[in-house]
């Protein structure tokens, strides 16, 4: 189904084949998807900006390139970007009022590399403000709806990207993952979400939330598509000192590696009372499927994983409080009217520009870095972070991947958790560990609970994207969960 049939039902791979075989042109493909975005986008509120005109120009160029044999790996294939990737000439809002009117003078490395490979950008997707949220409700541009049930949240912070892919408006979207912001929405919308190893993809041009945790990745419907995109996005970038100069393998070629013989770790702590029983059942079924395909399941311990959420909510706000200082109303973005003096300029520009969740995190972060509290919070959190990393390192001496639930429940209702930040934060309980340890993780659809998608998360050692992509791909060969889309958007 993903490789043939209606254009919007096809995966990137399927579209690539269709273009190569002349079934349709890049322009026809682009027009078809733009028309779907126009029809369905507003109801979901998945997009902040649609770049139809620029997309058609790119598509025409792609058609010419294809005709003259100059095509790259993604020529003519559609992509949308989470609205925290800077895009030259197209506004970049980060879901925030404080970036109102901000048009970046440059392209993020991810945007640049995908464009150079020939991808056609159709628009920029909605997100939690500055990627701070797990429900896409903190966006200044409003909440995003889950295509499976519009009263429900698609998760966050890459909620717009996940909703757009799940609703078959686009086959692929970029996202960023600081504590689960790609994997959790992928799980809640029945899509594939890949967060690479920290340093695998350049952060240059990503508006920073928490620099030591942020990582760019993709949301697609298949692991194969994720592999195609990662191959283009990954690699050292001299403009990002934290990007790692590590060879980029052929991820697509690596997909054929069988599951047989794979040692899959099951984290004892991941199947506790916090996990919804039906979700747990789906995850166990998917593990059984892997076992049946020849993988061996090994129970493992991550003794300190229970500390990952509190650790994260010290480290991430600390970094964000500093990263967001540049939004001061002086050089770009929102500035309050008629400031009385400098302090008034700062206070009102930032007070008006930032939403409640961002303010909460700036205040938390400022507090934990303050004189007298630094040791007790920030420094201690960094030590715990080391312990969590060590737990993973020890685990990977015994297993090749760690498998478990991506999120504790299926999609929840919009508004359900907004009054209770702590409950909201706990939605990332299974994903945050990978960010703290800098590990690659992927969420892949593994069934439904009461009609809503459930995600299976696979986490690998540093730079083992090949392993988790291959495992996810092989699992998708055995199952067809990813082919099931929300009926309303068929």
């Amino acid at each position, binding site marked *: 189904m993903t490789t043939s049939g209606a254009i919007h039902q096809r995966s990137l791979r399927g579209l690539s084949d269709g273009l190569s075989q002349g079934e349709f042109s890049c322009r026809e493909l682009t027009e078809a998807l733009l028309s779907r975005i126009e029809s369905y986008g507003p109801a979901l509120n998945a997009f902040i900006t649609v770049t139809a005109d620029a997309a058609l120009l790119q598509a025409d160029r792609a058609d010419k390139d294809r005709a003259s044999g100059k095509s790259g790996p993604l020529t003519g294939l559609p992509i949308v970007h989470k609205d925290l990737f800077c895009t030259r000439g197209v506004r*970049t809002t980060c879901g925030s009022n404080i970036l109102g009117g901000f048009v970046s003078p440059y392209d993020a490395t991810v945007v640049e590399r995908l464009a150079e490979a020939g991808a056609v950008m159709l628009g920029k997707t909605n997100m939690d403000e500055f990627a701070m949220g797990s429900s896409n409700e903190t966006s200044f541009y409003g909440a995003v709806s889950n295509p499976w049930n519009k009263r429900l949240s698609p998760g966050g912070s890459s909620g717009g990207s996940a909703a757009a892919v799940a609703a078959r408006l686009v086959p692929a979207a970029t996202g960023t993952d600081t504590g689960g912001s790609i994997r959790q929405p992928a799980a809640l919308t029945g899509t594939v979400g890949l967060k690479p190893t920290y340093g695998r993809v350049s952060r240059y041009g990503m508006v920073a939330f928490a620099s030591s945790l942020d990582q760019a990745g993709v949301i697609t419907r298949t692991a194969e598509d994720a592999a195609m995109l990662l191959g283009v996005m990954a690699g050292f970038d001299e403009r990002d000192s934290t990007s790692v100069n590590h060879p980029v393998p052929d991820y697509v070629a690596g997909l054929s590696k069988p599951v047989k013989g794979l040692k899959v770790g099951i984290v004892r702590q991941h199947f506790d009372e916090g996990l919804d029983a039906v979700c747990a059942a789906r995850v166990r079924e998917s593990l059984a499927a892997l076992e049946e395909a020849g993988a061996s399941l090994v129970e493992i311990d991550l003794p300190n994983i229970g500390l990952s959420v509190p650790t994260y909510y010290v480290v991430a706000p600390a970094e964000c409080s500093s990263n967001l200082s540049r939004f001061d109303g002086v050089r770009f973005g929102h500035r309050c009217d008629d400031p009385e003096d400098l302090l008034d300029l700062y206070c009102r520009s930032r007070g008006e520009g930032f939403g409640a969740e961002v303010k909460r995190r700036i205040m938390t972060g400022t507090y934990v870095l303050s004189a007298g509290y630094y040791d007790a919070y920030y420094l201690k959190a960094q030590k715990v972070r080391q312990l969590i990393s060590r737990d993973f390192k020890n685990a990977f001496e015994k297993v090749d991947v760690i498998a478990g639930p991506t999120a504790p429940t299926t999609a929840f209702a919009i508004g359900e958790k907004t009054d209770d930040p702590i409950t909201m934060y706990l939605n990332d309980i299974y994903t945050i560990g990978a960010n703290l340890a800098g590990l690659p993780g992927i969420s892949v659809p593994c069934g439904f609970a009461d009609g809503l998608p459930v995600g299976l998360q696979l986490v690998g050692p540093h730079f083992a994207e090949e392993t988790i992509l291959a495992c996810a791909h092989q699992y998708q060969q055995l199952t067809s969960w990813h082919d099931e889309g929300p009926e309303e958007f068929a």
Partner: protein
Amino acid sequence: MSGRWEVVIGLEIHTQLATRAKIFSGASTAYGAEPNTQACLVDLGYPGVLPVLNGEVVRMAVKFGLAVNATIAPRSIFARKNYFYPDLPKGYQISQYELPIVEAGELFIHGDDGNDKRIGITRAHLEEDAGKSVHEGFGNSTGIDLNRAGTPLLEIVSEPDLRSAKEAVAYMRKIHSIVRYLEISDGNMQEGSFRCDANVSVRPRGQKELGTRAEIKNLNSFRFVEKAINFEIERQIGIIEDGREVVQETRLYDSDKDETRSMRSKEEANDYRYFPDPDLLPVEIDESYVEAVRKTLPELPDVKQQRFIDQYELKPADAEILTASRAFSDYFEDVAGATDATAQVAANWIIGDLSALLNKVGIEIQDSKIDANALAGLLDRIADKTISGKIAKEVFEAMWSGEGSADAIIAAKDLEQITDASAIEKIVDAVIAANPGQVAEYRAGKEKLLGFFVGQVMKETGGKANPGQVNKIIKGKLG
């Protein structure tokens, strides 16, 4: 400040490193460009941009560390110093905090007691400079120029080992000399490339614990450092002697009024919330790197000074002056190597007449209108007695004015010394004949009149007669 009070001073010197590009971006560091034309997106703190460390600044910091016999940290960390200010685009300054690149160095100055005194250097760390707020020309608003934002600085922090304004200046001059020898900074104080903050406190002599200090910010000349510190010492002693307490605060020096003024108190001080910058990797330096840098170190002022004393037999004070800058010492060595005159004569001319002219015109020795070879040519003519020292000054000025080499000027102006005894005798005879009164007085015992006769002879010869010979001949004839 002798007497009851002991002064304790520590300096934080900010040296701008002479790199072409900024510390974390590729933008140029050249001084004096149109506002905001040398600030790229990284310097402007745009969303999404990231700092990338310029390796050249690391090399320069290591060079400095080795020159002051310091420890080079195998691993140092960049941290963020968080505060809001319009000319600080990111809302934080990238600096080194807990783990600086250079630690525990030292240098020696002449202490107030005349002996060599060791001054400890606590640390030297790398950081980026901020931009500049421009208050003129914008009505009620303030303009921001970010050309300077991201310029690399090395902040050199001394131990509180200095005991007077004079020692502070001597220390600052020494650092200034070292960074220029190392060619890691142009040391230009007018352009702000070399400036310091002074921490000053006083305590009763003999007391162990330090008094409450005030920090005087942004002193950009040796003279201001001396005056500001002296003012501050008097102010603090006055407060204590009045029975009040010195408040810990930051003060600004107003050079027009020659006073320091309170800028902000400790209570108003920022909590900078330092933490390691997650955008930058730790700076790791191995021994082979340090050794490679060590090989590039030039001869440093102290070593060179001793060599000048030993090799050229210079007076120590002169050797110190000549080695204060590399250009100065190079010039001296070029002259001394090219002339038949003694090195001390060369030193006298460079420290005396040449320096006076350079100061008067306000240029550096490397731009001197008389180059080392030309000066050597002049000194040769003194050495071989072609001209007298006095005439040499006339020739020197003519050389400065571009009238040619010493030999050319001597020939053109017919300045060659008269050493022919019979010629001098003739003139002496004429002078004696013309001044019978003075001759009588002299012979009556007024020997001071010898100078008068010599002067008359020199006048007659246009200053060209050999003064020694003239003296001798007059004495013979009048004796």
